[in-house]
Structures are given as structure tokens and as C-alpha cells.
């Protein structure tokens, strides 16, 4: 009889597993860490997205997003129903980096995804099928700065000209900020190859600077305001000065999907353009939804710079300029054709 207990124990594991499957993944999240729409992915136990509440004509699309303050326009547009007006039901799938989103879109797990344009160009140059469809919010503001190179208050570095031979923290090698650090150094007359960039995640950058592990950091909102409030000095508004007027964020899909589903891609593009146009006149609503969905303190979101000029159209010359920067600093070997980077609007 005792030997049966082994089987009982194993059966217990199976039962617990099945119970966990039934319980997990069916609740929708609310509050500070919410993503709008049903968060379930493809599991057998979870209910399908086309529930009785949604009208039958809505097409469900999975959209990869990074749940940070840059997603404000999409969140607001979704909340306002612009996507529903165009026949789309969005399922937002959270990821932690553009690389993860690009991988999901490429593998077909998601129909659309958010990406910064530098990783996108990397991906296209590497032969992935992803292509940009519509901007995320617009172009980098030429007046407000939301990305900067910071140093400690007592640093010997006073400007980008002092970056020669220094170690600068960037969120990922080959990223937009990595590019900005090199470009800022070059503009200030420093050999960009003498600047050493090191990968440090955004939340830990300022701590790394204070501890002396790096000499400077290329950081963005909300970490930038937080660091400056803690005594950091901004030595270069690199993004505004170098990429001002260019697109650094976009929504992508695969060319394969775009060829097979031109109406859905068109609907997504138009809904997003409508969201951007709306957001342009309702920035306070954008800030409110950012605070709600990220958990950031509303007082922080009221004052932090959004850093964008809201614009629903791509600046194609700007993208080409970014691509040329990437070739210049050795991020990619050669620039792919522009119609592989941005889907031509048909």
C-alpha cells in the first residue's frame, strides 16, 4: 500500500499543475501594472480573446510593447477606441527590450510590435523580415530633451569634448544611446573610438555612475530626471541635438504579414496616426495614462519631458541619416534599402 503513495504524490503534482493552469492567466490585470486588454497568451486553459462582449467584426491583433513611459500614445489611442473604430482589438504583450519584441514579431507570435529604429535597422540589415509600419509617437523633439549624457556633480567631464578615453554606460551595445554617445563625442572633436561604452540597464545607471564604475551614462526619462534631481549634471542633450527631428520609435510588422493582410496593416496604421494626432492636443491625457499604466508617480509624469514632436508621418531622410550613422560607427556593414525599413504606404 505504501508504494501506492508514490503514485499518489505524483498524481498530486499533476493535479496542482492543472489547477495552476486553470487559475493562472485568466485574470485581467488592473491598476499600476496593467496592460490594456486581455493579457493572456496562447494557452489551452485561457479563454479566447473573441469573447461575447466584443462585436464579431473586430480582428484581434497581438502587439508587442515595452511597458514604459514611451507607450503613452498607443495606450491612449487604445483607451479612446481609435483601434476599435478601425476594426482592431489589441492584445498588448509585454516584453523588456526591442530585441525581444522584434523576435516575437519575426517568429509570428505577434502581428505588430514596438521597436526603436536603431534595433530595427540592425534587424533588417541582419536579414529579418521586420519592417516599420507607423511611428510610435513622432520625431525626437528639437526643443525638449528627454535623453542626455549625465555625469556626477563633481566630475572632471564638463562636456562631450572631455569624453576621450572615458567609460560611458549605455542600455545596450549598438543601441540608439550607444550611437548618440559616439556621435556626440565626434561632434565635440573627440575620436569616437576612444570612448568606451559599457552595457548597464537604465535603472542601475545612475548608481553605477555614483559608484565610479562608469564615468558617465547615456540615460533617458524617467531615469534622467531622477538622476538630475539627485545631483547629476547633464553634459549633452545628445538626442535632441543629433537626432532632433528624426524618428527613433516605431511599430513594426513582418513584410510577409503585410503582404498577406494589407487591410489590417492599413487599419493599424490609420488608427495609430489618429492616436498620434489626438495625443498632440491632449498631452495631459497622455501623461495621465502613462502614470496609470507604468506605476510612475503622477508628479513625475507631469514634469518629465516627453521628448517628442508628435507627428504621424515618418521622416524618411532622418531614418536614412540614422542608418548612415550606424554604418559610420560600424554598427552595420551597409544600409539596407529604405523600403525594407519602412513599409511604403499603399
Amino acid at each position, binding site marked *: 500500500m505504501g508504494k501506492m503513495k508514490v503514485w499518489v504524490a505524483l498524481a498530486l503534482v499533476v493535479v496542482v499543475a492543472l489547477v495552476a493552469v486553470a*487559475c493562472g492567466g485568466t485574470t485581467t490585470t488592473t491598476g499600476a501594472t496593467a496592460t490594456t486588454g486581455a493579457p493572456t497568451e496562447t494557452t489551452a486553459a485561457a479563454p479566447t480573446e473573441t469573447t461575447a462582449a466584443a462585436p464579431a467584426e473586430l480582428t484581434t491583433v497581438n502587439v508587442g510593447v515595452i511597458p514604459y*513611459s514611451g507607450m503613452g500614445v498607443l495606450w491612449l489611442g487604445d483607451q479612446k477606441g481609435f483601434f476599435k473604430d478601425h476594426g482592431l482589438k489589441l492584445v498588448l504583450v509585454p516584453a523588456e527590450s526591442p530585441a525581444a519584441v522584434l523576435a516575437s514579431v*519575426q517568429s509570428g507570435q505577434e502581428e505588430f510590435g514596438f521597436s526603436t529604429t536603431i534595433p530595427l535597422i540592425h534587424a533588417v540589415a541582419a536579414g529579418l523580415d521586420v519592417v516599420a509600419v507607423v511611428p510610435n509617437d513622432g520625431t525626437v523633439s528639437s526643443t525638449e530633451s528627454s535623453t542626455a549624457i549625465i555625469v556626477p556633480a563633481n566630475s572632471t567631464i564638463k562636456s562631450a569634448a572631455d569624453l576621450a578615453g572615458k567609460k560611458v554606460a549605455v542600455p545596450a551595445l549598438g543601441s540608439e544611446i550607444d550611437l548618440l554617445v559616439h556621435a556626440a563625442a565626434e561632434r565635440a572633436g573627440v575620436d569616437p573610438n576612444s570612448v568606451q561604452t559599457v552595457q548597464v540597464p537604465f535603472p542601475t545607471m545612475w548608481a553605477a555612475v555614483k559608484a565610479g564604475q562608469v564615468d558617465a551614462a547615456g540615460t533617458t526619462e524617467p531615469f534622467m530626471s531622477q538622476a538630475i534631481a539627485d545631483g547629476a549634471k547633464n553634459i549633452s542633450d545628445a538626442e535632441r541635438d543629433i537626432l532632433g527631428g528624426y524618428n527613433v520609435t516605431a511599430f513594426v510588422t513582418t513584410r510577409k504579414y503585410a503582404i498577406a493582410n494589407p487591410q489590417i496593416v492599413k487599419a493599424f496604421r490609420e488608427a495609430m496616426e489618429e492616436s498620434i494626432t489626438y495625443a498632440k492636443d491632449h498631452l495631459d491625457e497622455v501623461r495621465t495614462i502613462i502614470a496609470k499604466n507604468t506605476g510612475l508617480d503622477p508628479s513625475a509624469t507631469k514634469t518629465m519631458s516627453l521628448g517628442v514632436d508628435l507627428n504621424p508621418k515618418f521622416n524618411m531622410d532622418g531614418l536614412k541619416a540614422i542608418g548612415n550613422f550606424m554604418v559610420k560607427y560600424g554598427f552595420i556593414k551597409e544600409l539596407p534599402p529604405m523600403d525594407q525599413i519602412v513599409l511604403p504606404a499603399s
Partner: protein
Amino acid sequence: MIGTASVVAGLSLWQLVAASGRLDATSFPTTSRIAGAGVGLLANRPFWSALGHTAESWALGLLIATVIAIPAGLMIGSNRFLFASTRVVVEFLKPIPVVAILPLALLMFGTTIKMKLLLVAYGALWPLLIQTTYGAHDVDPVVADTARAFRLSYPRRLGFVVLPSAAPFVATGLRLAAVHAFVITIVAELVAGGQGLGLMMFMSDNALRYADTYALAFIAGLLGLSLNFVLQRLERLSLHWHSSQRIEG
């Protein structure tokens, strides 16, 4: 008793050092602030929903690993040819850290639960497989011969002779695999994506709520600890008849 006391001592030390101002206040919140953040998290729906997602991935991944590892381990352990021929492959694949195949899983499945399941199942498979194999290897030869004399069919032999004999090894393997699987689930969520506690940690980082991040890490640790404890008790209950338990007394 001593264990609990040392934990309390550690927490008090943290509180003292953090409150003294010698460490950066935002990066090192005091224990009391972390506790407050923890209570705040536990009181709200998003935490439990995230926990559900983590538990789902953990349970399914562990189940997949178990369904593969236990039968495979029993077969490999009780058959000399299989044992010899698979040893090199297992020894080669075993030390590959799960995080190393994370980019592969991302490319195959994107930031979905399937990606997490691949990683969790892969990570939980090896300890369980190896433990089961060695347990099956050590069946009492008299019992094995008796089974053969009675002409028990191969599946019956595996299920009613080899498995019970290997049970303590399998139980240990399950315990190791379960805790390992939990760690991998959180790491996959934190680094790659997918709903769960790991994503909550990522988001609280991005929201500059570092006390929340610490609280979540602490809660995850507590969960792993209780998982280990529960499994140990289950092991004790279900294997009380085994000779190994008798020796422990």
C-alpha cells in the same frame, strides 16, 4: 531556531545600515520600507494575477519536464546499453545554462508562455533525469531478479519495481527540479518577457519603485523556500515506507 534568528539578525543589520544614510537611500531602501511595499503589493490584484501567471508557467514547465524525465530516467537507469550510450549526451547538455538558450527560445516563440515553458522544461529536465537515472540504476538485484522470474512485463516492471525503488532519488530530483524551475520562470520573465512576477520586477524598476523590486525579490525567495519545504514534507509522507527513510529514523 538558529535559522530564523540569523534571518532576523540579517534583516535588522540591513535596516540599521540602510537607515544610517551611509548607503544611497533610493538604491537601498530600509527593511521597513521594503516590508511596507511588500504589504502594499500583496493587498492588490495585480500581484496575485502575476503570481498566477508565474505559477502557471512553472507548473506546466515542470509537468513537461516530469513527463519526459521520469520515464526516460527509469528506462535509461535500468538498461545498461541505454545508460552507456546516453551518458555523454546528457553530460554535454546538462551544464548548458538555461539563460544561454534564452535567445533561441525568444526567436522561436517570442515573449509568450511557450518561450517560458521551453526554458523551464529544459532547466528542470536535467536534475530530474539524472536523479531518476541513478535511482533506477540502484534497484536491489534480488528484487529485480524476482520481477524477471515472475515475468512481469517491461512497463509493469518499470512502474512497480524500478520506480518505487528509485523513489527517494526521484523525490529529491523533483524537489530540485521544482525549485530550479521556479527560479528559471522568474528569470525568463525578468530578462525576456511574458506576464508574471519577473515582469512586475521589471516594471517596478522602470517606475523607480525600488522598494517594490526588493519586496518582490524577497517574496520570490519566500515562495521558493516554502516550495522546498512543502515538497520535503510530501516526500516524507509518501516515502515513509522506504528503507532509506527508516534509516534516517
